[in-house]
């Protein structure tokens, strides 16, 4: 079975900016995949190349085995893209926009699915409102709805939660998760790393047009980030511990791998005559992984 998305050696240059520099990436069917990277890393360019909005200078891209150039009809029918920019057509109402978008994909009578999308994105009461009258967050919802109108098996969301309130985030992720459970492949870009950590099972990190990390979320967390004991004490920390840890504003941070290491650590502190004033456990997080990856630490280099 062909991959949901296959990207092979894709490069793209804009003037003297190498936006994509030999990207290789494969997303399997049914995955919830995260595409992360700082501003200008090339995420949107990569998505645009996949959607046929941008033509790659080199390499191949396909959606479920259909090349996005030579077999663009099939590829585009299988792909739903939520663009990063908040765009809308001011001439139409929400429902008109969705019906028109549906027609572009050759969908016949699609009203029931449109109603379902409207319902799930909390848009039912706005169905007959003109696009101009909607708030930014509501427009964002319509943008998501427009990408889903032809029931694409592969859905790509380019920063769908930028500037969006908590309620929509929750409704949106709830809906997208359900689609994922129903078998849709999801690719997501976001700058909210917590969101990516919670949702995505696999993540690629892009930097200056290159893939600099690609692994399951769990592996990335394990490799680039660790648990740590964060504590404040009034005594002098034993030297053995100060060597492995770091101090910042009176807080000591002591990394550990397994929870069975916690008790011996505390015992050493007690033995040194220190009493604890504060104690918390720092969990590995994607933000730390991201920062380390972007600082140039490649996989496996972490000590």
């Amino acid at each position, binding site marked *: 079975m062909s991959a949901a998305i296959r990207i092979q050696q894709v490069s793209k240059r804009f003037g003297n900016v190498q936006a994509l520099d030999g990207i290789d990436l494969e997303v399997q069917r049914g995955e919830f995949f995260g595409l992360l990277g700082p501003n200008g890393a090339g995420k949107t360019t990569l998505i645009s190349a996949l959607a046929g909005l941008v033509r790659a200078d080199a390499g191949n891209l396909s959606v479920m085995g259909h090349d996005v150039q030579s077999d663009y009809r*099939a590829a585009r029918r299988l792909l739903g893209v939520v663009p990063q920019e908040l*765009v809308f057509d001011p*001439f139409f109402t929400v429902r008109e*926009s969705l019906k028109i978008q549906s*027609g572009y*994909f050759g969908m016949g009578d699609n009203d029931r699915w449109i109603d379902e999308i409207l319902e799930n994105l909390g848009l039912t009461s706005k169905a007959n409102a003109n696009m101009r009258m909607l708030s930014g967050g509501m427009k964002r919802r319509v943008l998501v709805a427009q990408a889903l109108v032809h029931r694409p098996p592969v859905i790509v969301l380019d920063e769908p939660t930028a500037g969006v309130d908590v309620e929509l985030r929750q409704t949106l992720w709830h809906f997208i998760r359900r689609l994922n459970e129903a078998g849709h492949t999801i690719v997501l870009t976001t700058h909210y790393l917590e969101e990516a950590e919670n949702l995505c099972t696999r993540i690629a990190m892009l930097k200056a047009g290159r893939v600099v990390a690609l692994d399951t979320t769990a592996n990335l967390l394990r490799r680039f980030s660790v648990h740590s004991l964060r504590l404040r004490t009034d005594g002098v920390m034993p030297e053995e511990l100060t060597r492995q840890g770091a101090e910042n504003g009176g807080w000591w941070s002591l990394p550990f791998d397994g929870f069975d290491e916690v008790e011996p650590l505390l015992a050493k502190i007690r033995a040194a005559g220190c009493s604890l004033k504060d104690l918390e456990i720092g969990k590995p997080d994607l933000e730390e992984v991201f920062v380390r990856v972007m600082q140039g630490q490649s996989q496996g280099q972490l000590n």
Partner: protein
Amino acid sequence: MRYGGFSTLLYKEVLRFWKVGSQTVGAPVLTALLYLLIFSHVLEGHVKVHGVIYTAFLIPGLVMMSVLQNAFANSSSSLIQSKVTGNIVFVLLPPISYLEFFAAYVLASVVRGLVVGTGVLFATFWFAPLTFAEPWWILVFALMGGAILGSLGVIAGIWADKFDQLAAFQNFLIMPLTFLSGVFYSINSLPPFWQQVSHWNPVFYMIDGFRHGFFGVSDASPWLSLAVVGTCLAVLTTLTLNLLKRGYKLRA
């Protein structure tokens, strides 16, 4: 509403101008009516062209000018607006081929041109006795002229990055071509030099052939006009399709 990329895009483009009909249909009809009132008031009784009283001569010219200008306005303004606001992605993401894209925008332009043209005809034909000597020429030239200007509108809308570039295209190319084409006069009444210049203006043949359909007489033979207009249409269609196929300024 019928479904499919082409038919939906055509429907959307027609709906788009229809929703702001007072601006896209009402205004140009009113403008043409004002031209008629002013020019016929000034010249009526002084001038006869091809044995036809001036006001009657003027009406088909105004109708065709409205068809052409509005066909151009439709595709060009729709495309530039979509590009500037970014909602052009809604048309670029679906599986719509460049042929369907072209056909839908051009046909919607023709529809707008015909709607406005018909409006102008209804608003003006009270003012003078009008005949329909060879009506098929009327239809042929209206359709072809609308398609040519609709196609030019696609090129201009895709080429222009900003509204003022489109305005320049309109003011320095479309307006002079349509005004200096014999809408308001027979080119036989011009000095020889300007007659020569007019013969190089394709819009002259569109108007002249269109007018032939009403009166059965014209400056040039309608067959010559058909050949010129047909060639223009073929050249512009090829050019526009080529730009669209390459994704010029639409797919980076």
